[in-house]
């Protein structure tokens, strides 16, 4: 204790606090209410897109990012090339 006390040791409590703050910021928005929101969005967005192109349900990713002033919802979906002509057609109308 006495010898080691001469050298400043990294405080573990601040590491605990920092890790928790990051984790909880994620969990508070990722769990519960907003995950239900994302599931619903995923379902409805898929239904809307499926009207025009065929989408592989497993290739859709909906996520939410939280920034200081706002949250960003990202929807990534892959559309197979075979469906592109139909999509262009739909878009040009």
């Amino acid at each position, binding site marked *: 204790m006495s010898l080691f006390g001469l050298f400043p040791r990294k405080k573990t409590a601040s590491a605990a*606090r920092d890790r928790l*703050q990051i984790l909880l910021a994620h969990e508070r928005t990722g*769990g519960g209410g907003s995950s239900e929101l994302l599931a619903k969005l995923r379902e409805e967005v898929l239904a809307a897109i499926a009207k025009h192109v065929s989408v592989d349900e497993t290739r859709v990713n909906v996520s939410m990012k939280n920034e200081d002033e706002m949250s960003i919802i990202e929807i990534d979906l892959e559309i197979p090339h075979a469906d592109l002509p139909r999509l262009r057609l739909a878009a040009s109308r």
Partner: protein
Amino acid sequence: MSEVIVVTSGKGGVGKTTTTAALGAALASTGDTVAVVDFDVGLRNLDLVLGAERRVVFDFINVIQGHAKLPQAMIRDKRLENLWLLPASQTRDKDALTDEGVAQVIGELRSRFDWVLCDSPAGIERGAALAMRHADLAVVVSNAEVSSVRDSDRIIGLLDSKTERAERGETIDKYLLLTRYDAARASRGDMMSVEDVLEILSIPLLGIVPESEDVLRASNIGTPVTLASPTGRPARAYLDAARRLRGEAVGEVEIPVEKQGLIGRLFGRRAA
């Protein structure tokens, strides 16, 4: 006016049952009538901490299933005439706690007692959900340690969404009780400080119970720590917390500090 309090935490082993017993005894010693209810079906322990384990005849499940009347199942404390225990069942399945049954029992307790303290099981499953369901106020018990604080955060989220009050669009009062606090570790920077935990959980502080042998000794003899070592630091923390719950002006929660050095060790025990 009657108040239903849930003592909850998410994580196990942080001191929910100790806290329920100590706060129950502290409130009862003011002359208020208090019922403490064990929701930990299958793993009951509130009876043991209160020293009533050999007096359990009927339990919560017996009442819900209509095999006993509520007054038959309630056990009166031997030391405090205003303190009553409703024990959990040790043998039944937790599914035996039905929504309607719990609602009815809590409603009846509410009409008979000034305070109803619900000792939640650990976890976020059925027993924990039902323990918080009818609460007006929650005492969130946490240690200054990462897994406990994370679980407390989760529980706070559930208190704000899954309780009857939350579903009616009302708020539920939530207070933090920091237990097993080690001032020496905190001052060395190896335990999160009170400020750290308060900043993360952002609910008001009800009290800080220091890590102490008093608590273990009290449970060894089946006596709430407020009665077993009434002048010790844990007891004083619980007594102050109870006064805060009663709305008395107690002043700010005192943060335990560890005095350094030999002089501090010799003379600073009260402050430590």
